[in-house]
Each structure stands twice: as structure tokens, then as C-alpha cells.
């Protein structure tokens, strides 16, 4: 394969073209860094906001209220205007010593050697399997991310009457998405006696007329081909069956750090995020991380944008040899 391997070099390679990665890339270019490459494995850059059809996005960055997709387009345009190279459909397959990345793209395998690398791979929700939920494994079980991609990117619905699990900010976003797509959740369940966030959930469930079941956990998911029913239990052990045609697991975000886990970089074994110093620098000083791959709990796009900008400024100083080397 070595004769077909494509090899390139750059000043800074950024893994992930979401808000933090694109903010960092834009800042780096504006600070005079010559070659900045954003690597995104999707066919369109912009990250999670691409499939968050609702506002508010863009208040921090553009002093305007935008929908997710418009915001995603705008941050991509901003980066390209600043002179950032965005390589789409490009998957980083390994993080090597001192910024040596291996890649795969439809053009074939490749390698990119970067002076500095920024890991901005974001976060994703914990799927049903890792939550160790009992029951069968029929069709109709998704996370918010998958639901929103289906609705906003592909205009399709995977269920009509799902049970929604979790009461984080993203759960509210999920209810909003359901409403927009004509999906009627049968209930919103929360294992604890308090919701994870205060106002939007109570407000949202009242607004949409969806029963909010607190202190309730899932005993099992039933259904042969598709989800048919979920068995619930309250804190006193009272069981209740609820008919539904899907289960939507929202929140419980975990860092999308599998590349880091497979690499030489140090990782927080419990939370899964790369270990960084106060500048966002990893255990190999050629690597930095920023955005939701570090945030627990996850933050909104504007905060990730800010974090990307801040880390980019450290990278600029580092490249100029002025950053403090202490870890």
C-alpha cells in the first residue's frame, strides 16, 4: 500500500469540524498560522449543529439567533474565508507520536504530519447497550443524535410514539425535535427524583402535554421486530407497562475519544477524556484538545466555539515558542 499512500504536512491539524474545531481553525489562520487543516469524517462539516434544527445558535459568535443548520453553514464559511483547508470524508485512523496522523479517505490511505494537532472530536450520548438496559433488541431504539440526523438531515421518522429517557438539556431538544416531526412521546422518564436540568424540562413537558415520570427506571424493553412495550418501575418497585413504538435515550454524554483511547496519549480512564494541562495540551505536547471532548457535562455550541478560540491562542503562542512549558 505504501506506493499509493498520500503524504502531506501542515502546521496545525484539527480533528473534527464542529464548533470548537472550526473556531480554533479560524483563530489560527487569523493569527497568521500558515497551513491549518480541518479533518472531518462526515461529508459535510459543521458538527452536531448540522442536525439541531432549532435555535438558539450563533449568539456568541454572530450576535444573531440562528437555527443549527444555518449556524453550521456559517461557521464553515467563516473558516473557509479565513483560509482554512477542510478535508471532508477524511477519517483519522491513528494518532502517532509528535503529530503523525494516519488517515483514510475515498482517495485512499494517507498520512498527515502536523506540527500541532487539536483533538476536537466532541461527544456522543451513551447508547442503550452501554447503559446495560434489560430486554429484547428490537428496532426503534435510538439516541437524540441519531433521531435529529434522521429528522433534520433525512426528513424521516424512526417511530411515532417513543418513550423518552432522561431530563438533560438535550432531552428538551429531543422533545422539540419530536414535536417538529409530528412524533408524540408517550412519556418522559427520569430515574432520579429531580430532573437533571430545572426549567426547560418541566416547561417542555407541560408545553407539549407529555407525562413526566420521575423516580422511574426501565426494567426492560419488549418487542420482537420493533419496540412494542417498555416495563417501568418506580422507586417503590411498582411496575407499569407502557406501550410505545420506540425508546429514545437522551444525554449521558461521553467524550468521542476512541482515537485517544487507542493512542499513546493519556486518558482519564473513568470519564474517557484526554488528560490536558491548563492550556488544553495533552500528554504528548504536540497534541491539544478542546470543546465537548473535554466538557463534562457537555456545553452548547457557543461555549465550544469560545473554547476552540482560547485553545487556538495557546497553540499560536506554543508555535511561536512563547508558551510556558510547565505541565
Amino acid at each position: 500500500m505504501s506506493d499509493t499512500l498520500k503524504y502531506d504536512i501542515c502546521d496545525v491539524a484539527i480533528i473534527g469540524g464542529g464548533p470548537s474545531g472550526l473556531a480554533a481553525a479560524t483563530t489560527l489562520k487569523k493569527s497568521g498560522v500558515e497551513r491549518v487543516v480541518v479533518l472531518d469524517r462526515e461529508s459535510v462539516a459543521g458538527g452536531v449543529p448540522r442536525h439541531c434544527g432549532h435555535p438558539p445558535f450563533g449568539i456568541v459568535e454572530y450576535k444573531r439567533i440562528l437555527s443549527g443548520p444555518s449556524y453550521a453553514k456559517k461557521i464553515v464559511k467563516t473558516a473557509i474565508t479565513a483560509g482554512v483547508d477542510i478535508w471532508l470524508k477524511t477519517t483519522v485512523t491513528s494518532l502517532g507520536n509528535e503529530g503523525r496522523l494516519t488517515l483514510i479517505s475515498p482517495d485512499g490511505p494517507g498520512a498527515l504530519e502536523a506540527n500541532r494537532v487539536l483533538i476536537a472530536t466532541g461527544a456522543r450520548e451513551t447508547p442503550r447497550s452501554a447503559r446495560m438496559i434489560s430486554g429484547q433488541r428490537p428496532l426503534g431504539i435510538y439516541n437524540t443524535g441519531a433521531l435529529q440526523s434522521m429528522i433534520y438531515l433525512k426528513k424521516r421518522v424512526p417511530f411515532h410514539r417513543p418513550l423518552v429517557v432522561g431530563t438533560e438539556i438535550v432531552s428538551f431538544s429531543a422533545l422539540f425535535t419530536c414535536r417538529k416531526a409530528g412524533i408524540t412521546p408517550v412519556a418522559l422518564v427520569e430515574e432520579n427524583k429531580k430532573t437533571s436540568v430545572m426549567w426547560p424540562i418541566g416547561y417542555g413537558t407541560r408545553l407539549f402535554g407529555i407525562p413526566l415520570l420521575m423516580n422511574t427506571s426501565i426494567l426492560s424493553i419488549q418487542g420482537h421486530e420493533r419496540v412494542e412495550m417498555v416495563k417501568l418501575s418506580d422507586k417503590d418497585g411498582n411496575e407499569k407497562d407502557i406501550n410505545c413504538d420506540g425508546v429514545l435515550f437522551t444525554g449521558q454524554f461521553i467524550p468521542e475519544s476512541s482515537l485517544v483511547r487507542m493512542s499513546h496519549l493519556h486518558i482519564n480512564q473513568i470519564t474517557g477524556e484526554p488528560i490536558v494541562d491548563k492550556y488544553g495540551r495533552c500528554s504528548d505536547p504536540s497534541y491539544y484538545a478542546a470543546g465537548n471532548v473535554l466538557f463534562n457535562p457537555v456545553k452548547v455550541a457557543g461555549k465550544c466555539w469560545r473554547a476552540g478560540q482560547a485553545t487556538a491562542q495557546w497553540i499560536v503562542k506554543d508555535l511561536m515558542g512563547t508558551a510556558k512549558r510547565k505541565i
Partner: protein
Amino acid sequence: MINKPDKIIQKQLQGDVTSNSAFLADTDVAVIGGGVVGCAVARKMALKGASVVLIEKASDILDGASKGNSAILHTGFDAPVGTLEWQCVQRGYEEYLAIRKSFNLPLLKSGALVAAWTEEEESRFPDILKKGSENGVKDLGMLSRSEVLSREPNLSVDIRAAITVPREFVIDPWSTPLAYLMQALENGGKALFKAGVTGGEFTGSKWLLKTARGKVRARYVINCAGLYGDILDRDVLGSSEFTIKPRKGQFVVFDKAAHKLITSIILPVPTKRTKGIVLFPTIFGNLMVGPTAEEQEGRDDASVDRNILNELHAQAIKKLPALENIPVTATYAGIRSATERPEYRIIEDTERNWITLGGIRSTGLTSALGLAQHVYGLLLKKGAEFSEVANPSIPKVPNLAEHLPRDCETPDYGEIVCHCEMVTQREIKAVLESDLLPAGSLSGLKRRTRVTMGRCQGFYCSAHLAELTEGKFQEPIAVGETDE
């Protein structure tokens, strides 16, 4: 002469036929059941020159017991000595190694360690070694505690000793039967899906089987119906010599970061009831623990249970402490078609030309090719005459093994759809649009490409997949469009 399948008929057989009185085929051999055993038997029959139809009630192969096994190629070192099971495992093992390269089927030469964690377990080693030797597995060896730990340094220091089984390997549990059936189809065989057998009549020389899709006439019938083998015998023959006692096995799959923690399959010291809980690398680059052995009534209820999964997880960590920090990728359960007795239940109704392959449990993936040889032998004894296919066509299956080159390493694959398992659009389209054997369900597509089987479980790719598979499956991912 190679008898190429008629592509139009093949498609017709996989599509929906409304009338069940239609006459679908007149064949030498009807194989009922598209699990690993059925696929292997169909292959053998086609290669020997018989006309063969595989009849499956689901919309794709491997919908029953064969969808959830441990993917181990067994040497048979611990099989019951002198039994048919032992013979089929040995023959199946040899034939797999002889043919697998021609199909592009992968092999992980992991070897296995039978690990003793207690004095009692260690005390059973002489019996295991003796049995291995009686079973013709001559290369078993012993490792002391320090030798085990130098070979597998991540195992818990509580390990006492181990027996090495150098030729116990890991294979791809789904591409293997797929390759067998594809070869049957490429050499004249046919497959009929969504065609549960509802009854049949033996007319003195031939069977007329009734299926949900129409009728099939056959000289010989091989019941490979696995979990439903006894029911099929009762429905068609009037009685069954055995009763299926479904035995569930739950598994926990760890993230690919765990793969490097062990190189060998870590077997427990077997007990009478089961081979026990195994820790093993998968061909796809994960590490797994399982299966449990739970008797249950339901033949198709592969429910997982949180408490048992947690128990499996804890046991895995006890044996391999570094797993504590590795995320769980997936959980699932398989159901073995055990019977009230421990041995294989191979039953021949010589007067009615019907052979039942029943009670094929954990070893079926390895023994399938051996069982197929055995069935062919039985038919020859009955005086069946076929003329062997001279230069059979050999299909290549796409490689899904992590340690071998994947499709995405060859340019022009379109784009990667499933990022966790690196599944390309080209791979998915090839399986969906196959003339020979397209995927009949989302689970079938998953088994044949690994799509959505990775760590995010469809977080990133479900939407794309919903679009790519639209109109292809009876149970689609998307059930409607958005209001706008």
C-alpha cells in the same frame, strides 16, 4: 458443468409471493433452516451435484441460534470422546482450515488457555489432558502461573495454571455460513426466504412440502431447523424423538481498546452443563465475555438482563482487571438449541427419506461442515446418486476482520457510513444489491457489514443507513416522513 443459478428465479424466490399454493421447486434435497448447519449442508449437496433448495422462514439467513455464538473454531479437545459430535467437530475443523482461504474467510490464530483459578479447577487438569489425548488433540500443554502471566500479562495474578490448546482459533461467525450458502447458490442451489414450512406429505418416493410461500417437491429432506427442529418433526412427521430446551447465553462486548489485553481465548475449566464463561478476542477487534447458560421456555426471546450483564462484566474484570476502564460496546444474547440430552440428535427416518439434525449447540459453527459430510454419507447409504460438480465456483466474501485489510483501504469506496466499524457505502450497496443473496433484513445487513455494531451503536450513522436501506426491508428503519 457449473449450473449457474437463474438470477431472475433467485430474485423471485426472495421477493414476496402472495399465493402459497404456487409450486416453487422440484429438487433432490430440501434443507429446512438457514442457520450455519443448513448453509453447510446446502453447500455440500450442491457441490456433490444434487439439486438443493434451502428453505428459511425468516427473511435472511442466521436468524435463530446461529446469530449469537462465540465464534470459536473448536479442536474438539473437550468433546465427549468417540461421539458423533466429536467426529463432526474434528472433520468440520479440518475442512474449514482447508477451504477458508479460497472463500477469503479470516482466521485469528489465537490459541486458547484453559485457565484454573481455584485449586479444585486445577485438580481437573489431568482429566482434561487425558480427554484431549483420547480425542486426538495431541498438542495440549501445561503452563505454570508465571508462564501464563508471561504469555498473558494482563490476566489477574489470581490465575493458578493453564492448559494450552494451541489450535483453538477465532473465526467470523456470520461470513462463514454466508460463504457456504453463497457457494451452494453459485453452484446451482436455490434459497427460499420467508417460507416457514407448514406441513408436508411423503408420497412413497418424494416429499411435497408446504411452505408459507408455496410448495416444494423433494426426494430427501434435511431438517436443520435448529431451535424449531422438534416442532418441524412433529408438524410434518407426526412426532419428534427430542424436545428443544432453549438455552440462552448472554454476552458483553468490550470496546476495541480491550483487544490488545489478551491474545488467547481464555476458557474456563468446563463443567457438565456448559463450557462455561469464556473471555475471548473477536475477529472484529473487540473482546467479549460470555456466554451464560440459562434454560428458558422461549425459543426466540433473546432478552438480555441487566443483573446478569453486570455479573458477566464483574467476572470479566475479576479475570482481566484492566477491563474495568474499558467501555462496553454491545450486549446481546444467543439461544442454543439444546435438548433434554447432551449429545447431538441425528435421527434418520429411512422410510421417509428425512434426516433431522437436532440438538446442535455451541459447537455447531465448527461441526457444520462435518455434519454436512455425515449427511452426505447417509444419503449415499440410502443409494442416492449424484455426480459431483467438477470445477465448482468459489465465492469470495468481503473481509470484516480487523487484522486484515478492510474495504475502506481501497480507494473509491464512496464514503464511510459507519465510522466506528469503518463500513463503506460500497460495502453496504454490494450487500443490498447482490443478485445472488441480498441482505433480507437490517440484522442481516449488520451481520454482513458490521454497520452500527460499533461503539456508538448507530448514533452517527442510523440516519444515513435509513436512507440507504429505504424500501429494502420488510421492517424498515424509518417508518415515515417528517410533517414538512
